[in-house]
């Protein structure tokens, strides 16, 4: 195990970016305003894209550059743009989606990070680049996104959370495994694109049917007693 200071700069940079992404995830979790949440999400996409490029440079794998571009276009630009446009058309851009007990939520997120680290500790350490720790971070990203999904009421913020979940996965794919096979990566990108479009369609459907985007109102189908 080498000391952190002995690592090449590029690796230190990659870790810094990883930490930044984690921070953006926390920020997302705490962000109550819709527009701000989308902006943070765009920043996260940008950070992810930059991280991918760094990894690509570090490992010299050309297809990671494609991934970097893809994620930049898709996650930092297109999807935020789409979400902002939709929100504007729906008139919810300035809405609040109050975070339930923000302090508690952030503490829970912190606990989750520790938990995730605990989970991956038994993985045997290889003297390669960031691997085990990358998994821990990506696991934490996924978990925090899930936590955000649970704590948000608005459809739009749920979508942001969902997309940030995808970011966590992408992070894992990039840092832990230096990208997936190309066919898989293209497929994933395609799916995310379609999903974003479908989300857009749904916002209107939901608004048309319940006249709000508060998903807590969507509870007609249930098994509980009235």
């Amino acid at each position: 195990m080498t000391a952190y200071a002995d690592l090449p700069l590029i690796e230190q940079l990659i870790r810094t970016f990883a930490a930044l992404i984690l921070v953006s995830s926390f920020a997302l979790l705490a962000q109550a305003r819709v527009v701000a949440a989308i902006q943070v999400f765009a920043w996260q996409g940008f950070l992810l894209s930059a991280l991918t490029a760094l990894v690509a440079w570090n490992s010299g794998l050309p297809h990671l550059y494609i991934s970097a571009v893809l994620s930049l276009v898709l996650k930092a630009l297109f999807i935020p743009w789409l979400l902002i446009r939709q929100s504007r058309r729906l008139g919810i851009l300035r809405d609040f989606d109050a975070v339930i007990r923000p302090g508690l939520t952030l503490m829970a997120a912190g606990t989750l990070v520790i938990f995730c680290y605990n989970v991956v500790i038994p993985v045997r350490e290889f003297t390669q680049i960031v691997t085990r720790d990358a998994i821990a971070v990506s696991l934490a990203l996924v978990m925090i996104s899930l936590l955000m999904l649970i704590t948000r009421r608005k459809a739009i913020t749920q979508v942001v959370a969902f997309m940030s979940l995808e970011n966590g996965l992408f992070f894992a794919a990039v840092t832990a495994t230096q990208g997936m096979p190309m066919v898989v990566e293209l497929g994933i990108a395609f799916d995310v694109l379609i999903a974003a479009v479908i989300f857009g369609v749904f916002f209107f459907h939901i608004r048309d049917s319940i006249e709000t985007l508060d998903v807590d109102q969507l509870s007609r189908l249930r098994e509980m007693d009235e």
Partner: protein
Amino acid sequence: MIALVITLSTPLLAALVLAVVRSPRIGGWINISATAAGFAAATWLAWTVLGQGAIHGDQFQVDAFNVYLIALTSLVGLSTSIFSRPYMEHELELRRVTPRRMRLYHASFQGFLFTMLLSLSTNNLGVLWVALEGATLATVLLVSLYRTPESIEAAWKYFILCGVGIAQALFGTVLLYFAAARVVPDPERALQWSVLYAHAGQLEPVVVAIAFIFLLIGYGTKVGLVPLHNWLPDAHSEGPTPMSAVLSGLLLNVALYAVVRVKMITDGALAAGVAHDPQLAGRLMMGFGLTSFLVAGLFLHRQKDIKRLFSYSSIEHMGLMTFAFGLGGPLATFGALLHMTVHSLTKSAIFVTVGHASQIAGTQRIEQIRGLIRTQPQVGWGLLIGSIAIAGFPPFGVFTSEFLLLTATMKSSPWLTVPLLAGFAVAFSGLFRHLQPMVFGALPAGQKPINMNPVPVTLHLALVLWLGLSIPPSLARWFDDATRLISGSGLL
């Protein structure tokens, strides 16, 4: 290989064609022709695999396990498309759907079939994931086809829950890739199932265990395992009935297929027993399966909607299959494979009759569906016999598989037969307490028969009956090969 190409490309092409065909009527016929062609190709493929052994390609792999699922998928696709034509025309007449949405419906139907076949035949776990996600995307707009508030709610829940689930599965896939990348030098091959399976013993067990948990939860959401099942009854009940038929008959199977494939790798990785209980995957599946089986049985008692009723029955049966695969061993595996087949056939037949029944009554509410045998005997008897079959009464095939399963449980973990027994009783009573008043009873006023094609139901139930009386040797060998593949030893 050509057969495989045709099998896969038919629905893809049909989806593209149907996306531009304007007339719903012609669309319905194209739909049937395409599924018929696909079924013919799948039969050819199955014949080839039966004769010449498994096809092992880099990207595609067709072995004993998936070839029968491919054949089953195209068969259920065919009969559902036959059922869907008059059904959807009736919906069109009632103005519940517009011709434009019919276009979406037909295109999505074929698109869904394509994703199913792709996920079954691919050798790449990444592609498997992409295809399953594609299946969600293809069907989510079908769930909200009627644009009622309930259907949109159902579609939203379906989309988010399955989306989150599938994202978790992707994380699991990434972890698997991570584990494999250390062992397999060529990164392009590191996600290929056959490669992973061959190198399973060298994979890092801790990573594989974490990956399995993510994959189990991810694909388990699609299988409908309790407590991840919540999207399933909503999506089944609010979408058009042909879609419920294929969701229950196919999607759940394919998701379970994915879980089993992953379990095979996990078992290989954990076999050494260094880091974890070597039975971890099986134990988890047994736990989830049993929970689903019991809880879904209880849910059956409180249903008011006929399609929800049968979707809980699907959860129950998927739980049973998951339990059986988790139990392992040739007897249980054989039973689970058989159960997959007969459950798809029976459940899709049931959904066909359920669709007609709710068209006759004009509602899906159980309390308003009455006296089907008097109104339209074909529908009433179809529903009754289908339910008898699904409840596990001989001479139908479901009984055979449940027989194998129960005896296998008795052999390896006898105490689990107690909850199984309770589950069967609870589920049966839950199903039949609602079913009987629907099919029996006096002629209700103001309900008249509707146009239906009896072929799909008859065909499916006849097949299930045949499988119950005697499994043809060729099919038995198939099942046995698959059993050998999954559990390591065969029965024949």
